[in-house]
């Protein structure tokens, strides 16, 4: 999310979890033009429910400068109930409560600030449910 144009393009995915379901049934978020598993190009848009399960996670203690004030924070690979796999921060919890298999819900949060004068970037993060 480096500038206003790219940020605006990504709003449907980052704000509303608008992904895609290919003919094969594979679901993705963020979107891609070709299903990497089948090579299929036809898909329908799908709005994800925001419910999912943690497949893996880690703790970030030395982040990129942009996220320096937020460290330490947890990041997880999450499989949504529809089958999409995505990466998101897991917030509002103690790290020891995060487990592989934990149920999560995607919520709307501020992701980063572009310096002191740039735009604020919003999108999805996860909380344990």
């Amino acid at each position, binding site marked *: 999310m480096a500038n206003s144009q790219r940020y605006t393009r990504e709003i449907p995915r980052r704000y509303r979890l608008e992904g895609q379901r290919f003919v094969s049934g594979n679901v993705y978020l963020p979107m891609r033009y070709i299903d990497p598993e089948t090579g299929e190009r036809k898909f329908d848009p799908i709005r994800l429910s925001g419910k999912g399960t943690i497949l893996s996670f880690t703790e970030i203690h030395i982040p990129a400068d942009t996220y320096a*004030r937020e460290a330490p924070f947890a990041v997880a690979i999450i499989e949504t109930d529809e089958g999409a796999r995505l990466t998101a921060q897991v917030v509002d919890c103690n790290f020891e409560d995060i487990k592989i298999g934990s149920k999560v819900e995607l919520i709307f949060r501020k992701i980063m600030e572009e310096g002191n004068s740039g735009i604020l970037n919003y999108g999805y*993060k996860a909380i344990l449910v």
Partner: protein
Amino acid sequence: MIGIVGFGAYVPAYRIKSRTIAEQWGDDAGTIERGLLMQEKTVPGRDEDTITISVAAAKNALKRAGIDPQKIGAVYIGSESHPYAVKPSGTVVIDALGIGPHVHVADLEFACKAGAESMYICYSHIKSGEMDYAMGIGADTSQGAPGDALEYSASAGGAAFIFGRENVVAEVMYTHSFTSDTPDFWRREYEHYPRHGGRFTGEPAYFKHVLGCAKALLEKSNMKAEDFAHAVFHMPNGKFPLKAGKILGFKQEQMDQGWVVNLMGNTYSGSSPTGMAAILDVLKPGEKAFMISFGSGAGSDGFIFEATDRITEVQGLAPTTRGILEGKRIFLDYGKYAAYRRKIRFDN
């Protein structure tokens, strides 16, 4: 019939106890807790602001309303902590919720009254027949300077209300507004924290406007305090709303449900709206509720609501205000609190 078709609240999971703040500044914790009637307050997460709180509250309101977001014709967000100085909070909120682009959006500011103000404008839109639904939100991540009395109360949270004509759960029976130029609390451009007039914020500001609005509303409606199941008054601290209610003839049990300040703090524009959401969580068909907001500067907007039979069908469709308040709580020490609230300044 015109009224609320959906309502929802949200407060962050983080908290700081009044005792923790008192210990930081050498104040007597017992005196503070007894004086303000506040045990703890909400603190926004580092990734939470008026926009994210508005989205969370609005999602709960949409769950209860059960309407297509595209049918909402106006969205107003009242706050004194809009994240941008120039760029609307409302545009982010509508795009996150799937509302618009055919929608009227505005950010409002009137100290702590801006949330109730958004409700008043939404009600007026529906009354005029201009649109089917309109959503008013009051949300804040309130500022209070380190060591200032405001630091004990300034907190984070908000509530959202969708107004319409069909499937109303609480009818708007009467409204009234009471406003005058009273500089009791303010924040100038580029200043981080508001300033206030100390005791001047009491009788000449809060009580003059809250009681002025409430008395006019009771007179207009030809109702008395005992006609209401619940009442909520703006909650800058624990004492002021209870004192105002008592002067008007309300009993403690009528004020208990909406008096969320002891656990939430003062969510500024979200204060009386969040208390009202807590009341709607339990209001029974046919029962009436009384709401008086207050915003420094100064003014009060008042509402009288009556619940319809439908309210019991929607109350369980989203988390209740007290359920969120008394649910997951992560307590912070003063150092973390200062960092979360950006009271520690960095050079880059």
